[in-house]
């Protein structure tokens, strides 16, 4: 599989720069997910790789060959579009074989290929239907089939599941993951849904404001977010971010915020020593707060629970910690009462700290 590399890639519309010098290298046969909120430049990046959008500055390399001036068809890429983009005047078989027919491949080969892919995607009985006669999920599968029939080295996905309803999306996500195991190709996938990103990716690239915020495996990003944005973007429910200040004498250092006062151990003390000021942003994942009424005050947070959202095995509590909103995730059968002040134990190793000036993580 060819390696795709982006070097100082920029995109401007007039004087307005939407993508600021992106550097990215994708590994062989890797599933890379570009994720970020709308308008972060992830789709633009993908479309630039595809060749549908011109490159303002920088270069795209496919196997060390600069391609930014090449037409899409010269880049050997297949793409699945957000709105399926199926040709309405062609039936499913014709849609899937369009690229092969343009290449003037022999008819027999085209038929074999189409049947093979239709088999994989469960589309065999729909081959003679027009796109208008298919359901959303089937159309999505045809769109994927169209990419699969071509022996492209790289697949590009532009938010392929965003038009499906919740149930179908989960199902298609699983199918994609299964297809991923069968088909060893480079895949670049754009989504705004962090769950899709977490479940599918070998590597996630989090983008915001036209810049790459962090890249790494889903686990790396979840456990060690590089900055405040990544921390709050990945994970549901999102990470709690609380204002705190570091105070202490020579032997005892405490993290004090409104409603809590945590005693720091040596390790934490060292980490906090690297902060640019005494004020820090304290990050705790909702799942890291453990309901423990008997926990000592120096290693716990008191939360006044306002709302409980029941989601099955888990419940998400939305609480108030002296004016700051805090979310907690815990087992549904935990006996808690709404409107009560509850105590949650905190493990210092689970805490994330962010510099208030730069928003960068303190490690």
């Amino acid at each position, binding site marked *: 599989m060819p390696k795709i590399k982006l070097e100082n890639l920029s995109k401007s519309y007039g004087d307005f720069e939407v993508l600021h010098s992106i550097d990215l290298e994708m590994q062989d046969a890797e599933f890379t997910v570009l994720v970020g909120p709308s308008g972060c430049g992830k789709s633009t990046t993908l479309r630039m790789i595809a060749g549908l959008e011109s490159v303002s500055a920088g270069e795209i390399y496919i196997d060390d060959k600069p391609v930014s001036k090449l037409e899409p*068809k010269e880049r050997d890429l297949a793409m699945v579009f957000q*709105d*399926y983009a199926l040709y309405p*005047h062609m039936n499913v078989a014709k849609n899937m074989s369009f690229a092969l027919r343009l290449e003037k491949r022999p008819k027999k080969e085209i038929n074999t290929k189409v049947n093979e892919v239709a088999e994989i995607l469960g589309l065999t009985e729909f081959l003679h239907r027009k796109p*208008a006669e298919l359901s959303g999920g089937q159309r999505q599968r045809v769109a994927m089939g169209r990419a699969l029939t071509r022996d492209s080295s790289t697949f590009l996905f532009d938010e392929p599941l965003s038009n499906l309803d919740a149930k179908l999306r989960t199902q298609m996500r699983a199918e994609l993951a299964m297809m991923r195991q069968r088909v060893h190709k480079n895949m670049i996938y754009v989504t705004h849904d962090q769950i899709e990103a977490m479940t599918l990716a070998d590597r996630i690239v989090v983008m915001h404001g036209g810049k790459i915020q962090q890249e790494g495996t889903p686990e790396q990003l979840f456990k060690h977010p590089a900055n405040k944005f990544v921390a709050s973007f990945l994970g549901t429910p999102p990470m709690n971010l609380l204002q705190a200040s570091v105070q202490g004498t020579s032997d005892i250092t405490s993290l004090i915020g409104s409603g809590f006062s945590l005693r720091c151990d040596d390790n934490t003390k060292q980490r906090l020593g690297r902060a640019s000021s005494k004020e820090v942003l304290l990050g705790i994942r909702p799942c890291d707060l453990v309901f423990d009424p008997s926990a000592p005050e120096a290693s716990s947070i008191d939360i006044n629970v306002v709302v409980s959202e029941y989601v099955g095995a888990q419940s998400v509590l939305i609480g108030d910690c002296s004016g700051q909103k805090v979310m907690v995730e815990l087992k549904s059968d935990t006996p808690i009462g709404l409107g009560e002040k509850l105590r949650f134990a905190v493990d210092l190793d689970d805490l994330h700290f962010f510099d208030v000036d730069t928003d960068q993580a303190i490690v």
Partner: protein
Amino acid sequence: MSNTIAKRQHPGFYAIVVMLIIMAVGPIAIMLINSFKLDVDITSGTGGLIFMPTIQNYETALCDILPYELDHLDYCALKFGGAFINSLVIAIVSTVLTLIIGCMAAYALVRFKFMGRDTASATTLMVRMVPPAVLLVPVFGLWNNEFCLDKDGLIGGFIRETFGGRGDVCLAGTHSGIILVYIAMNLPFVIWILQSFIVQVPRQLEEAARMDGAGPFQVFFKVVLPLIKPGLAAAAIFTFRIAWNEYLLASALSDRDTKTVPILIVNNMSEFNVEWGVIMATGMLLAIPPIIFTLFASRQIITGMTAGAVKG
């Protein structure tokens, strides 16, 4: 239940409907009936439906292409067959060329970015607002005197040798001359109508085709064109109808061999003797091609062509 049983309307409603039907169908019915009458029956003023039907008028009209001799006619003066073929050639060729040029121009105006695009788009239709009568004199002059090939020149000489005739080879009096004017006349409207269809083709489809390896022309012919078929059909009906019916420009630009049916019918009225029966018969024959063409073209106009292309 009121959905299945038609509600009884006010009698005035039926009166109006009948009146409208008579207004719409009446003249055609009269023409049809009269085309089967002899001139004496038509002009005698008795009217009515009691007469001896005859196809003599049609025979007279088509005398130059009928395989048999006519008893009632000594000399076939009316060259309806020839004019009919002229009309067909001119209408079909000008329609086809207008559509080909029009759809490409419309696509360029909608999809490509270039300087003066909006101005070009806005002014195309303005050109259509110029009445043909205004065009008549300058076009006549140009076609007769300017756009000519010297009869001693290479191509001009060849044409004169092959097809005969006298003088320089000019556009006036040729099929091409009339076709050119019709294309120029119909193009603005066709571009305008096709623009609105092309705008509706999702851009993603074109992008998908490009990703599939289609070049600009393949994107246009294999993806865009099939999707704007209803627009093409509508434009074709419009163009064909205009080219088929046009009288003014054709009367000035055609000669004896290239005249179209409308010209022929009008010329058939002489000062002292109007052959009503023949005029009615030629009128009926004139109406047939556009009807067939419209029936054929309108089958292409199916709404919801783009349904299911992208999420809808």
